[in-house]
């Protein structure tokens, strides 16, 4: 890796860690969403360093373009939330959770730091190779792998996304006042019909018993 690559890694890693901390620490949700956006862009830069060009583009499109915008829309719908009073109950468990996670993360990070793998050179496309050149992580090579090795999961993911969209609409839509009124009206009508039916049956039974008395 070149010196420029190392500088880019250092910059992206710093931005990623700081913006992740910002997402967690910052009080207002909209600032947390903006911090998440910075984190996603930094991760996209790291993906570029790792020869995952298509995934870097997808990360920007899907996360920055869809997920963060969805978060911002929801924050907009909900409006400025009422500042919650600081909860003193559970401070001990919160502190313990933070301490344990910091220790575990530090152990994990320091033990993973010396992992060494031989840097396998990935040849770039030569000038004369043209469109057939399959570069690692590029659109051609990645989609060949996607549609040959991962075709079934890919199709299943499309089904899952459809189900998730339908489920999200069904959960978030709720019922409008008209719909509630309509269902109430329907229930009243049904009750009325049942009462009328019962009354008719009673009248019929009375008539039958009256005829029986004559006979």
């Amino acid at each position, binding site marked *: 890796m070149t010196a420029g*690559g190392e500088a880019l890694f250092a910059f992206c890693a710093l931005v990623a860690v700081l913006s992740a901390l910002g997402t967690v620490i910052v009080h207002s949700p909209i600032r947390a969403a903006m911090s998440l956006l910075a984190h996603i862009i930094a991760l996209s830069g790291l993906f570029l360093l790792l020869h995952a060009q298509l995934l870097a583009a997808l990360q920007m499109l899907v996360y920055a373009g869809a997920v963060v915008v969805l978060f911002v829309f929801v924050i907009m719908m*909900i409006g400025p939330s009422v500042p919650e009073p600081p909860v003193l109950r559970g401070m001990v468990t919160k502190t313990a959770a933070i301490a344990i996670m910091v220790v575990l993360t530090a152990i994990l990070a320091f033990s993973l730091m010396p992992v*060494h793998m031989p840097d396998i050179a990935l040849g770039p496309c030569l000038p004369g190779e043209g469109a057939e050149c399959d570069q690692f992580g590029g659109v051609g090579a990645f989609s060949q792998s*996607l549609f040959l090795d991962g075709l079934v999961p890919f199709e299943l*993911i499309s089904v899952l996304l459809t189900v998730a969209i339908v489920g999200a609409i069904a959960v978030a839509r709720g019922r409008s006042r008209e719909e509630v009124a309509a269902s109430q009206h329907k229930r009243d009508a049904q009750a009325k019909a049942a009462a009328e039916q019962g009354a008719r049956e009673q009248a019929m039974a009375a008539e039958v018993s009256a005829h029986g008395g004559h006979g």
Partner: protein
Amino acid sequence: MQIELGHYLSLSAIVFGIGAVGFLVRRNVLVQLMSIELMLNSVNLMLVAFNRYMPDNHAGQLFAFFVIAIAAAEAAVGLAIVISMFRLRKTVHSDRADTLRH
């Protein structure tokens, strides 16, 4: 300094830890969902980094692709639940979602 696989792995571990702390400590449901996204992103970084140093196939990048799709679906459903909860409780505080406790 040479950047190795280990640097990416420890960066991913640190971001995962930050996301886990955020999920455990924060009580705003929106921030908790963002912490879940942080954790999924850190796993994506790990998968892509492993794939860079074993470039025989694109297995790691394929997994990262699927994780991105799952994360999008999860965010959509999670935010729908947040809206539904806000309609019922007028709050996004996850301690207030305690109907089943009483």
